[in-house]
């Protein structure tokens, strides 16, 4: 029971803090709304401001439980003393009784479904890994810290700041409930907008279409941020529309703040800002209101950019790494990641309409089959409100093809739903809503949707009230939960764990270094690949021999472009009279691409390699500065067989004779790979049956130099032995 109270306290404090701050801001702005609008806009604007406050608390390392109790209480008290908590007496005309009853009963039922799942232990894929993993990390560190092993931590985290406030008191479920608040807020805002525009029935219909959409439900009850994002952009739209009607200058302050907060929630929603600026310019061709919007937005955008510029050398990390090269996220990774997100492995993009409405298996969730009627929304172009809605839908869906997961349609969904609901055939619209309700209930989805599509299963009150064991629930629904509990129990504080897959790191304290989530993780993955894959082993030596000559610098460069591959060098060695010239601390090394990795070609480890971050580019090179001239008569590049050695030139020595030799794979690569992990403070490995190195870890534990700590399900945890613990294993 105590846990339930903490969950509710965490959620309540966060919501109350945001709401009170919003009430104060609107009070100061002097903008009057109806009672329903006051409540929704207060929470929304307050959430933006409260998130920003938590950002700065994090910068100053003030994440303490007391702060997250004291701050909201202070805000509530301040709002009360100002008289800002008094709600407006203005109200919209009442909705028809039949509409209230029918909509209330449908939404009430789904509300139970949503609330119970939000309050149940957090089991979502991204929520249990990075969304709350990072929140938990920040809270443990008492402040926001750069987590260079996860590019996700470079994304703006506006909603995660709110999660953090709730997490400090009520842990994971409290955070999920904060997101669930936005799930209830969004349809309420949609109804309010439509009522203000004199279309209450359309508003209710559109709101139900969104509220019941299966992907909105499952996303909204999880520690994700897509539903919150949808609420924020709809807030921008609503306030702009209100400004359009009243031209109250102070509304633009809130518009700017929410447009800026859109960026803080999700980079792609930075489109809110040009949308708002465009609208203001369209209606009032003056610079001042535009500057007001821009200035307020900047207050929410700039702090995130400054943080990233300082911590990631890239203000918009983890994107645009070609513009802002940095050692934390590889350009090549960004390119491949974007390509992956744009396809999700679909054979054809023409399957998207089916996937996002019916299937849900490949694109993680579905909107519901009735959204196949979406083209009918075009009919609403006949009236001005319809045109506005569809323009907003177009803007906020325009980035969808950068990530075609169904949930990325959510920011535009309210506009589409309202445009659909505005169709003049009210009975048809209401019938569609009824069908949508029937098809969106979890038991119905089983009949038409993909069985692995992301969705809710049922009302889970026993789990929500912790009558059913949290451990059992998490173990059943979070595949990596058992292994992270083992990690939490066995891995000492400060030690890191390496994994080729994301783990439910929100449930453990040790840092998980995931292979694909950072440049560091990738470098370590390459070391492991180099040890195991024949095409990656350094079995090719390219030798440049020439008459002895004093060299102050040696540089090799590629002589042609090769767009599909990257250049790599395991080791670059210099010789004189057959003996390798020992590397001196005075030497300096350089590479035109991925310069920070250049030392990997000079570390005497054949498990590591310098790996360019761009395709083969004519003229790119790797160089070593010897400080002062040394006699050299041979330069050797040790490379893998997948490199076209004939495209490489030793600069400045045209008479050098080039020879390619194939040599036996060196022994000891497995251990050498793990020594790279140790060198980066990674002392443990979590691997799952099915991963390509799993059997080798098991069968060659001596060669790797590891010991098994334990097994949970199909996953194993190993400790990497220190060098002094290695036994003499082979004769």
């Amino acid at each position, binding site marked *: 029971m105590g846990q339930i109270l903490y969950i509710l306290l965490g959620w309540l404090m966060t919501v109350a803090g945001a709401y009170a701050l919003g009430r104060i801001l609107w009070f100061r702005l002097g903008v009057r709304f109806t009672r329903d609008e006051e409540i929704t806009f207060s929470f929304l604007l307050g959430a933006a401001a409260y998130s920003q406050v938590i950002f700065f608390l994090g*910068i*100053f*390392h003030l994440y303490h439980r007391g702060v997250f109790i004291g701050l909201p209480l202070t805000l509530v008290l301040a709002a009360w003393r100002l008289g800002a908590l008094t709600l407006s007496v203005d109200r919209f005309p009442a909705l028809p009784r039949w509409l209230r009853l029918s909509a209330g009963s449908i939404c009430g039922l789904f509300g139970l479904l949503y609330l119970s799942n939000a309050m149940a232990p957090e089991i979502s894929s991204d929520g249990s890994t990075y969304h709350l993993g990072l929140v938990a990390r920040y809270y443990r560190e008492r402040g926001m810290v750069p987590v260079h092993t996860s590019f996700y931590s470079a994304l703006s985290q506006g909603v995660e700041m709110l999660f953090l406030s709730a997490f400090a008191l009520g842990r994971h479920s409290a955070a999920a409930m904060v997101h669930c608040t936005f799930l209830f807020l969004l349809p309420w805002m949609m109804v309010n907008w439509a009522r203000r525009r004199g279309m209450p029935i359309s508003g209710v219909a559109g709101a139900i279409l969104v509220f019941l959409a299966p992907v909105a439900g499952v996303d909204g009850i999880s520690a994700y941020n897509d539903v919150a994002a949808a609420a924020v952009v709809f807030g921008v739209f609503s306030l702009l529309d209100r400004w359009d009607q009243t031209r109250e200058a102070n509304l633009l302050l809130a518009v700017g703040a929410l447009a800026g907060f859109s960026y803080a929630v999700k980079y792609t929603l930075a489109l809110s800002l040009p949308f708002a600026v465009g609208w203001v310019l369209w209606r009032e061709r003056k610079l001042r209101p535009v500057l007001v919007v821009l200035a307020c937005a900047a207050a929410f955008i700039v702090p995130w950019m*400054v943080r990233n*510029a*300082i911590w990631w*050398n*890239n*203000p918009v990390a983890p994107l645009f790494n070609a513009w*802002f*090269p*940095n*050692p934390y996220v590889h350009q090549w990774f960004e390119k491949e990641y974007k390509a992956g997100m744009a396809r999700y492995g679909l054979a054809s993009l023409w399957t998207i309409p089916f996937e996002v409405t019916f299937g849900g298996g490949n694109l993680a969730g579905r909107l519901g089959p009735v959204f196949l009627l979406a083209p009918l929304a075009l009919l609403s172009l006949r009236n001005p409100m319809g045109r506005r809605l569809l323009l907003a839908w177009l803007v906020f869906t325009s980035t969808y093809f950068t990530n075609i997961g169904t949930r990325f349609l959510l920011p535009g969904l309210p506009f589409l739903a309202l445009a659909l609901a505005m169709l003049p055939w009210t009975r048809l619209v209401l019938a569609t809503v009824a069908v949508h309700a029937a098809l969106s209930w979890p038991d119905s989805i089983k009949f038409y949707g993909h069985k692995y599509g992301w969705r809710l299963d049922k009302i889970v009150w026993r789990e929500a009230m912790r009558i059913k064991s949290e451990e059992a629930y998490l173990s059943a629904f979070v595949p990596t939960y058992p292994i992270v509990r083992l990690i939490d129990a066995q891995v000492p504080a400060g030690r890191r764990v390496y994994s080729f897959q994301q783990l439910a790191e929100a449930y453990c304290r040790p840092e998980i270094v995931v292979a694909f989530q950072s440049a560091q993780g990738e470098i370590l993955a390459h070391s492991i690949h180099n040890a195991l894959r024949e095409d990656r082993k350094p079995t090719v030596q390219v030798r440049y021999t020439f008459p002895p000559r004093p060299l102050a610098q040696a540089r090799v460069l590629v002589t042609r472009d090769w767009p599909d591959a990257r250049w790599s060098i395991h080791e670059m060695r210099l010789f004189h009279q057959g003996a390798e010239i020992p*590397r*001196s*601390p005075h*030497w*300096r*090394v*350089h590479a035109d691409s991925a*310069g*920070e990795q*250049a*030392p*990997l070609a*000079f*570390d*005497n*480890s*054949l498990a*590591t390699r310098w790996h360019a971050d761009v395709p083969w580019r004519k003229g790119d090179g790797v160089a070593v*500065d010897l400080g002062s001239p040394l006699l050299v008569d041979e330069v050797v590049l040790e490379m893998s067989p997948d490199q076209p050695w004939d495209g490489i030139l030793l600069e400045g020595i045209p008479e050098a004779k080039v020879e390619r030799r194939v040599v*036996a*794979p*060196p*022994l*000891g*690569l*497995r*251990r*050498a790979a793990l*020594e790279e992990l140790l*060198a980066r403070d990674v002392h443990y490995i979590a691997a799952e049956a099915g991963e390509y190195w799993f059997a080798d870890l*098991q*069968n*060659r*534990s*001596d*060669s*790797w*130099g590891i010991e*098994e700590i334990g097994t949970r399900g199909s996953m194993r945890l190993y400790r990497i032995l220190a060098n002094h613990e*290695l*036994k*003499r*294993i*082979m*004769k």
Partner: protein
Amino acid sequence: MRLNFFALVLLSGCTPVPQWYSIPNQRTARPETEPAGIGSFMTFGEKQAPEHIVSDVVAGSGTEVWRWTNQKPTLKFVVMEANRWTFQIAFALPEATWKQTGPVTLRVYVSDQLIATAANLPSGRHELRWPVPAGLLKANVETIVRMELDKIFIAEADQARLGMILENAGFVK
């Protein structure tokens, strides 16, 4: 703390990425961690695999990822310590040969001591594991493992005697 942060904000845009880097700490190769000769486990396709063969494995070029065996394929292994090992073997009984032999029984002997019997094996791929009794293995000493099949396929055309398709075998922890 506050001063530091604001100083950082004011003084830094994106920090320039350095052009030249120092020579890193030099790593020491540890070839002894992997068997130059034979080890505790062998997988066909690996360089050292042929060195594990004692007898009754059909000859190959050395690069195959599996090999046919005869009736009593015998391999040798070296383990680093004596205790807590499991013997593991992955092999296949192809449908084509199984049609002639019917269900097959495999017996595994470690140092001439029977440690396991797998009876009535159907066709298909099998991956089997049995614990090795304590005291049977000696550290850093060659151990002979003999596998016996009760029936083998004999080709009508060339009288080739084919037992199973062996992928890997050896001692694992």
